């Protein structure tokens, strides 16, 4: 059998039992990458030698009892905006093409301590700005379900790698949906945790008040296991929540009888694709059958989330990305004059989308516009947060689609950035409010492309959404029904 088809904690169990060695698992993974990444281009950097050396070290660690986590020995991909000591971390940008950080991100350290094997650095939209992974300086990643389509973004490389069998699990980052939307488009599961649950130390910032690292995996249990490993307080990140450890795998064991699930009616308005709508409502019905109380409610702020999100995210980005000036590291244009050095380095080093957002952000923070844009966006953010709070006084979790459509064709989205931004309609509000949310696959559309359902929890309510998602997963059995290999059959069946 093909080892790379196993789920992450399943492989972990096999390794622990001695049925497969870490080296065998890593070698199988590397072979799969070698074969498939020519097609999908999920990785910017593959850690071939490092992973094999690490495999032996982990094997010994498992024997000696140093590594006991469920993901010990499991090959995992990390998005290329997460710093890895000694391994270049590019943010998929020319400006950081050769940046090798002298430190690892907190999540990378935690994965290391859990005995995971870092297999490669996953492709992404440049500086996580985009919903397609096409803005990568290193070229687009393709959707394993249909290579004429985008995998979603910005963690498109990570989601595609998990879907294509190029990684057992991956670590992405989610600023406005960047974990959930590619998970939806690639038919995998992804969690955006509550802001503060996972340390941002070592995550190269896009929009600091919205960025949150999260896991992507082939099922809910794997996601819960990985999230359990990477979460917890870190005193190097002042915005990190105080709790030292979280236990998510526990949640899976329980049912959802009596769980109150709210469906924001506005999420099912005109812009939503019919296939997506039907699949998500079918999923809601399944949850009802499992004992949850599901009802619709009105959420009024949905339409304001996108403008508020883009104003805040771009403002923070314009400041966060100012440090890439050619003076200290990264790309530097050969100029003598300081002003010219700045101009040319940044003009040549950043791609179009990054430049667009830097300019928007600079504009909304400029004196004379701050009140009208940035400050207003902060007020909208507070209102959105408040509305979610109200909703959570009535419901345990909220349910809706992750994205309004399935994966678009390559090249389609970037022609109309505004339309691309509107694709984030269901995901950005969650970041503005700092809430946890999970995307789970809930069907295929008429083209055989995966559809994702989003479950949103109250602050630190990861256990609720994980439990609901797991119950749904068990009832629906997406991976048993559908897989990439026999896609044609699915289409005929739909």
């Amino acid at each position, binding site marked *: 059998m093909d080892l790379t088809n196993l789920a992450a904690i399943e492989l972990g169990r096999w390794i622990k039992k001695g049925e497969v060695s870490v080296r065998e698992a890593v070698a199988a993974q590397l072979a799969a990458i070698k074969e498939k990444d020519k097609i999908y281009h999920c990785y910017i950097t593959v850690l071939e030698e490092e992973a094999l050396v690490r495999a032996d070290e982990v094997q010994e660690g498992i024997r000696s009892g140093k590594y006991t986590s469920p993901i010990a020995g499991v090959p995992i991909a990390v998005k290329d905006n997460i710093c890895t000591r000694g391994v270049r971390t590019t943010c998929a940008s020319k400006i950081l093409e050769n940046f090798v950080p002298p430190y690892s991100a907190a999540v990378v350290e935690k994965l290391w301590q859990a005995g995971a094997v870092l297999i490669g650095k996953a492709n992404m939209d440049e500086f996580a700005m985009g919903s397609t992974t096409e803005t990568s300086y290193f070229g687009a990643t393709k959707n394993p379900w249909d290579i004429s389509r985008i995998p979603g973004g910005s963690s498109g490389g990570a989601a595609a790698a998990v879907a294509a069998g190029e990684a057992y699990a991956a670590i992405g980052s989610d600023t406005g949906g960047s974990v959930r939307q590619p998970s939806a488009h690639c038919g995998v599961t992804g969690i955006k945790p509550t802001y503060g649950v996972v340390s941002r130390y070592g995550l190269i910032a896009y929009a600091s*008040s919205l960025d949150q690292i999260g896991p992507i995996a082939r099922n809910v249990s794997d996601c819960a296991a990985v999230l359990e490993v990477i979460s917890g307080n870190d005193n190097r990140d002042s915005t990190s929540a105080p709790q030292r450890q979280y236990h998510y795998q526990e949640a899976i064991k329980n049912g959802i009888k009596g769980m109150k699930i709210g469906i924001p009616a506005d999420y099912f308005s005109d812009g939503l694709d019919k296939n997506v709508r039907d699949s998500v409502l079918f999923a809601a019905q399944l949850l009802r059958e499992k004992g949850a109380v599901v009802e619709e409610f009105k959420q009024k702020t949905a339409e304001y989330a996108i403008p508020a999100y883009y104003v805040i995210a771009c403002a923070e980005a314009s400041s966060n990305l100012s440090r890439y000036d050619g003076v200290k590291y990264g790309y530097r244009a050969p100029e003598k004059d300081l002003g010219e050095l700045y101009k040319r380095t940044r003009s040549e080093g950043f791609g179009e989308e990054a430049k667009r957002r830097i300019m928007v952000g600079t504009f909304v923070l400029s004196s004379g516009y701050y009140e009208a844009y940035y400050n207003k966006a902060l007020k909208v953010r507070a209102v959105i947060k408040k509305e979610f709070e109200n909703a959570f006084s009535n419901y345990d979790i909220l349910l809706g689609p992750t994205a309004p459509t399935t994966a678009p064709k390559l090249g389609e989205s970037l022609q109309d950035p505004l339309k691309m931004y509107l694709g984030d309609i269901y995901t950005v509000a969650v970041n503005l409010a700092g809430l946890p949310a999970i995307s789970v696959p809930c069907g295929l559309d008429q083209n055989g492309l995966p559809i994702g359902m989003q479950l949103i929890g109250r602050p630190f309510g990861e256990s609720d959404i994980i439990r609901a998602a797991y119950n749904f997963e068990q009832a629906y059995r997406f991976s048993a029904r559908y897989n990439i290999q026999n896609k044609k059959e699915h289409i005929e069946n739909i």
Partner: protein
Amino acid sequence: MKSYETVIGLEVHVELATKTKIFCGCTTQFGGLPNTHCCPICMGLPGTLPVLNKKVVEFAVATGLATNCKITRHCKFDRKNYFYPDLPKAYQISQLYYPICRDGGIEIETTAGKKVIGIHEIHMEEDAGKLIHDPLENCTLVDYNRCGVPLIEIVSEPDMRSVDEVIAYLEKLRLILQYLGVSDCKMQEGSFRADINLSVRKIGAEEFGTRTEMKNMNSFKAIARAIEAEQKRQIELVCCGGSVVQETRRWDDGRNTSFAMRSKEDAKDYRYFPEPDLAALEISEEWIAEIKAREPELREAKMLRYEKEYKIPEYDAKILTSSKKMADLFEETVEICGRPKEVSNWLMVETMRLLRETGMDAEELLLKPEKLAVLIELIDSGKINRTVAKEVFEKIFREDIDPELYIKEKGLLMVQDDRLLKEAVERVFERNKQSVADFLGGKERVFGFLVGQTMKELKGKADPGKVNALVKEALQNHIR
């Protein structure tokens, strides 16, 4: 000229004396090879995050309390964005919207009397690096050692009207900071720098005139000169029907003049916005109370205690407390030898004289209390006299010598043996028979000459009182 008044407000930047930087664990030590006191955080490498040094907050709060400010309980940091190679993140973490202290003031005293100078706000921020031009390679190098060193900026109200008031305010402020131990306030090293906002207006006018901001003064004297020059320049402009341009000017102390740096109108837009990498800072009543409780004795209290506890005159107490270093030295020495008046004398007379001679600031004093105590002990026990002691003191002050060793090596111990003293008197009488005869003949002022000769014979190493008595005794013997 007389019909104009000058309006001055100050922005004082103070480097805090924390051991580590404001957002990372790097040392704040001055000096050090370029780029050795920095790490990924203070160099703003991608992915790093700032973590606030609690001590910085405590120092800022302590300063606010000592200057009668209100403490902002819910306080926040903001980003000030601008591109410059000495600023590795291309933004400075500072405070604009919610500075830590507001609405305070301190009382100053000048020949014109007492007056309160308002403090508009105090905010915390990080220092930037330093650019060094390399003429050999014709390029500019960056040293990030100072990056992230904690600063507070103390912004006064435009309440000062003269050089005297400005200097009194700065001296008072500096003393408070030094007494609190929050900064060493060394102007030369840049740990205490003041920018002057100055405008002029007709006396009695309600509106302020257009102001300029003056930078780059590294001593109180330079500040005084810069103010004199700037008020003269502005009054002359206004008198001749011209107008003052709002601008930042750079003081050139060597040439005693200033020149415009850049106009404020086309000044950079700093695009301030709340720093998302730092959680809002909640300062509880308890924390403020704790900081207040730890507040060290400030100058006024110290002066009163000196008068009461050590029976020192008010004037002396004032001088002794005019610098934290001096006051510490005084107390530590008294602690060892228990002679407040004697210690006070050495500090007020000899120490002050030597400070003047060397042009040193009291804060730079290297004098160790143990050594001054030993010296006083040596005088008290009659081992050396005051003339010798002064010589030894100067050596201690300048070279930090060991007083006992020095006296031994130089043979400065006083001759105590009566026989040796008497022999010396005899030798002097022998050589100066005529003078002795003159004395016996009634010329009494020769007595002083004989005493002086004897001291000389003893190379000054004798108790003058004792020599005096022995000469008298010897003369009486001659009469008989």
